[in-house]
């Protein structure tokens, strides 16, 4: 039997418990650290939910996806060119403001996003109350509260992933509105972007990146137009990651 395999990408800031969630989902035993840049090489794993097979890619932990570094390019390229069925953005609930920065960027790149509000146990301990329903409404995508290390919320997450890959969830991702000057420029650039890079990529986001002078993205787009590949460059190497 040749079952369809869904791809799930895992993005997030460093230190959000992204690797912990990865371990919980895949069952792979791996030591996770508490410092920036721990996930040096991104890893892949598998899990099965309701008889369906999922491949999950742990992207490098980054603060943004603006291609400031090799890590950020790897993460960005996977979301754009790997076209995962779902991208999970793991946020540290205790530092939501900074973490949302990345989530908002991902929402500009794809509409198949689930926001994982991790470390809810820590947030509760700090007396923070987060209105997840309202957050979900504002972001336009599902928000699942989690405490990955206590395995809290995993079932709900799996269910949400399954519903999303089956097209049962309609999302309307929040588009950040920029200054008038920038919005005007986006409007000017948009037709050309659509013509050159095609409809398969998020045109508004591409336009925005180009206005920011992101030449590496353009190179990547040009390259992928010719050799489109689905695999990305995921390589599992858990051994070298931890002490």
């Amino acid at each position, binding site marked *: 039997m040749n079952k369809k395999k869904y791809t799930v990408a895992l993005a997030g800031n460093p230190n959000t418990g992204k690797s912990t969630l990865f371990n919980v989902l895949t069952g792979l035993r791996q030591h996770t650290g508490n410092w920036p840049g721990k996930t040096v090489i991104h890893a892949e794993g598998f899990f099965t939910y309701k008889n369906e097979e999922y491949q999950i890619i742990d992207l490098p932990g980054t*603060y943004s996806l*603006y291609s*400031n*570094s090799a890590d950020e390019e790897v993460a960005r390229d996977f979301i754009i060119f790997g076209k995962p069925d779902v991208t999970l953005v793991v946020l540290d609930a*205790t*530092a*939501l*403001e*900074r973490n949302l*920065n990345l989530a908002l960027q991902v929402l500009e790149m794809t509409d198949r996003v689930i926001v994982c509000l991790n470390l809810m146990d820590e947030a509760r301990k700090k007396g923070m109350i987060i209105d997840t329903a309202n957050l979900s409404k504002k972001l336009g995508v599902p928000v699942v509260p989690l405490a990955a290390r206590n395995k809290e919320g995993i079932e709900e997450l799996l269910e949400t992933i399954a519903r999303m890959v089956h097209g049962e969830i309609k999302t309307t991702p929040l588009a950040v509105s920029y200054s008038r000057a920038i919005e005007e420029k986006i409007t000017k650039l948009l037709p050309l972007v659509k013509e050159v890079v095609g409809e398969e990529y998020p045109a508004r986001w591409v336009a925005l990146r180009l206005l920011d002078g992101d030449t590496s993205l353009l190179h990547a787009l040009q390259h992928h137009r010719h050799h489109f590949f689905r695999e990305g460059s995921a390589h599992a190497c858990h051994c070298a990651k931890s002490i």
Partner: protein
Amino acid sequence: MARAKLARLSDAKPGERFRITKLEIEGTMKRRLLDLGFVPGSEITVLQKSPLGDPTAYRVSYTTIALRKEESDHIYGERIGNE
């Protein structure tokens, strides 16, 4: 805003609040600082210096980020009193 009045972040003392006006730094470092929340308009708090006097830890967007003096020298803004 008169330019002369702008202070450097590196001049702010532990416990002080600071509102960023601009980053006079270019390239990767500027982008990195922006990603971490050192954005014009942000208010940050100086937490403390490392035991050897540098770097200094700042509270920005509910996270703690340490910067060396080389960076905080180029972040300008207003000192807006103590916490």
